[in-house]
């Protein structure tokens, strides 16, 4: 009976994920997954194995309250750190369950398979937890950039990982010992920290996807420890999902996973950047001038970046887009896969600002349209628009990265606080092009100014 219910739950998870494939069915998909979870929980609670409900009820009430408040209160701009935190909690829960299951089995009944999967669950789950906490702190801006500099990250990584595996092996050889498994736990925690610490802000989409995958792997490993198929299936699904997203994010940045993990924050050879060159000329426009240009345009493509989220300018931007649309101008959005701090982050922000999702276009779908577009409006994005460096400068770190062809638009407007280079520390030729107008200022303030000026035309 219990097993059948678990089967139904696993099926509902798969159906739910499948329905997440289209915005029309996505919400019902989430509901399907939710009911699958409910079935699994209720059936487990009815199980005869459970003798004492005190701790369960206390734990569930506390957990549900925390989860509910977090889900209701969180701002959409802070979604990446929220998901990171949830990933981490899932990871540590899996590790704790595997650990307790291992203890429960007792030294006499532990076979090699259980011991190995316990070690995997402890390693992956705990590393997910501490790694996610670091990611959370970074995304919240609680960690200074200097904190990310570790000496020889690759070596350190390998050493700690080797130590974890050694303790794991010792635990295998000596199942009665109360030392080695806890050691695995502690060292795995350390591993999570040094894995995420050197990773820079713009690489967060990769790390969050990876941690997402890990939380699934941990759940699956715990499923092996408890021989519970629903855990194995769900964990495998989530592990696969996170891995796919990790790969997509890496491709969108043209970096290998190893490069993201070990290259450190903006690791550029010193002095490679424009020193000794003459200061280059930019064309500076005021909001009033820009408004007049926009008013004569027939088509506008908006390119949002993380700066938009930082400035909380998504609602103002949507107002501007509506205003232009009402004047008969075609307005669309071009979303680069790594815009924002997690996969799909920009889409959520703009959806929150009531932008219709059919106007949110993927890079491949819109890139050939830039040449027929009058104005490309870049808001808080930089590296993803650096087509020059990506296509034609083999020595640039951005070389080969898929970029938005903003330079092909008849004119470009870039809203930016200053000329400082982007996260990767690379100058963007787009800013100096003759067809580019630079609008210096805070994104929200500038967009609000543009709205006012266009209204007064």
């Amino acid at each position, binding site marked *: 009976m219990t097993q059948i219910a678990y089967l139904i739950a696993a099926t509902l998870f798969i159906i739910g994920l499948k329905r997440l494939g*289209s915005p029309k069915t996505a919400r019902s998909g*989430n509901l399907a997954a939710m009911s699958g*979870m409910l079935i699994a929980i209720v059936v487990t609670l009815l199980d005869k194995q459970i003798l004492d409900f005190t701790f369960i009820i206390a734990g569930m009430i506390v957990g549900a309250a925390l989860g509910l408040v977090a889900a209701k209160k969180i701002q959409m701009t802070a*979604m990446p750190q929220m998901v990171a935190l*949830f990933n981490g909690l899932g990871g540590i829960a899996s590790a704790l369950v595997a650990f307790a299951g291992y203890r429960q089995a007792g030294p006499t009944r532990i076979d090699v398979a259980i011991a190995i999967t316990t070690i995997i669950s402890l390693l992956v789950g705990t590393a997910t937890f501490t790694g996610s906490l670091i990611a959370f702190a970074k995304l919240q801006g609680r960690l200074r950039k200097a904190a990310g500099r570790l000496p020889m990250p690759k070596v350190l990584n390998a050493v700690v990982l080797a130590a974890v595996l050694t303790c794991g092996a010792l635990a295998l050889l000596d199942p009665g010992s109360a030392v080695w498994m806890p050691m695995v736990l502690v060292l795995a925690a350390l591993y999570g920290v040094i894995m995420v610490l050197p990773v820079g802000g713009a690489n967060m989409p990769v790390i969050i996807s990876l941690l997402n995958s890990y939380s699934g792997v941990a*759940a699956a490993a715990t499923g092996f420890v408890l021989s519970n198929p629903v855990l194995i299936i769900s964990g495998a699904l*989530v592990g696969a999902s996170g891995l796919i997203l990790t790969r997509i994010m890496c491709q969108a940045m043209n970096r290998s996973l190893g490069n993201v993990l070990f290259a450190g924050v903006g690791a550029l050879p010193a002095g490679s950047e424009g020193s000794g060159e003459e200061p280059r000329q930019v064309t500076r426009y005021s909001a009033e001038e820009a408004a007049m240009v926009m008013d004569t345009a027939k088509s506008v493509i908006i390119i949002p970046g993380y700066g938009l989220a930082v400035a909380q300018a998504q609602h103002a931007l949507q107002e501007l887009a509506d205003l232009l649309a009402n004047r*008969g101008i075609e307005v669309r959005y071009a979303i680069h896969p790594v815009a924002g701090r997690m996969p799909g982050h920009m889409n959520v922000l703009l959806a929150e600002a009531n932008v219709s999702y059919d106007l949110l276009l993927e890079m491949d779908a819109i890139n050939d349209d830039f040449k027929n577009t009058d104005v490309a409006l870049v808001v808080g994005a930089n590296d993803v628009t650096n087509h020059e460096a990506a296509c034609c400068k083999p020595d640039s770190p951005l070389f080969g990265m898929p970029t938005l062809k903003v330079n092909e638009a008849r004119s470009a407007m870039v809203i930016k606080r200053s000329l400082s280079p982007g996260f990767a520390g690379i100058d963007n030729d787009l800013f100096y092009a003759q067809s580019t107008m630079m609008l210096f200022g805070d994104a929200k303030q500038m967009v609000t100014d543009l709205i006012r000026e266009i209204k007064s035309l």
Partner: protein
Amino acid sequence: MDANLITAVYIFVLAVFVGFEVITKVPPLLHTPLMSGSNAISGITLVGALLIAGGGDGMVAKLLGMLAVICATVNVVGGFMVTDRMLEMFKKKPETRK
């Protein structure tokens, strides 16, 4: 190797393939909800946590179990709620232009 383990490995491998098939089809538009939704699903570990916390297996196990129940419940409840909140916002608006 015993048959149970082999079956479990089969289940795992097949589920990974199902996961790849299903999730490759999700458009970038929905990647954030996908991530928080799948994240909530990984909170299934709650099932294991319940069994540990409710088992009659000593205080340490119960406390470990309770801690796991708390973490996993935050994961499940928070994950599904926030996914729903996001998906609610994804709307296609009717054309307003004349």
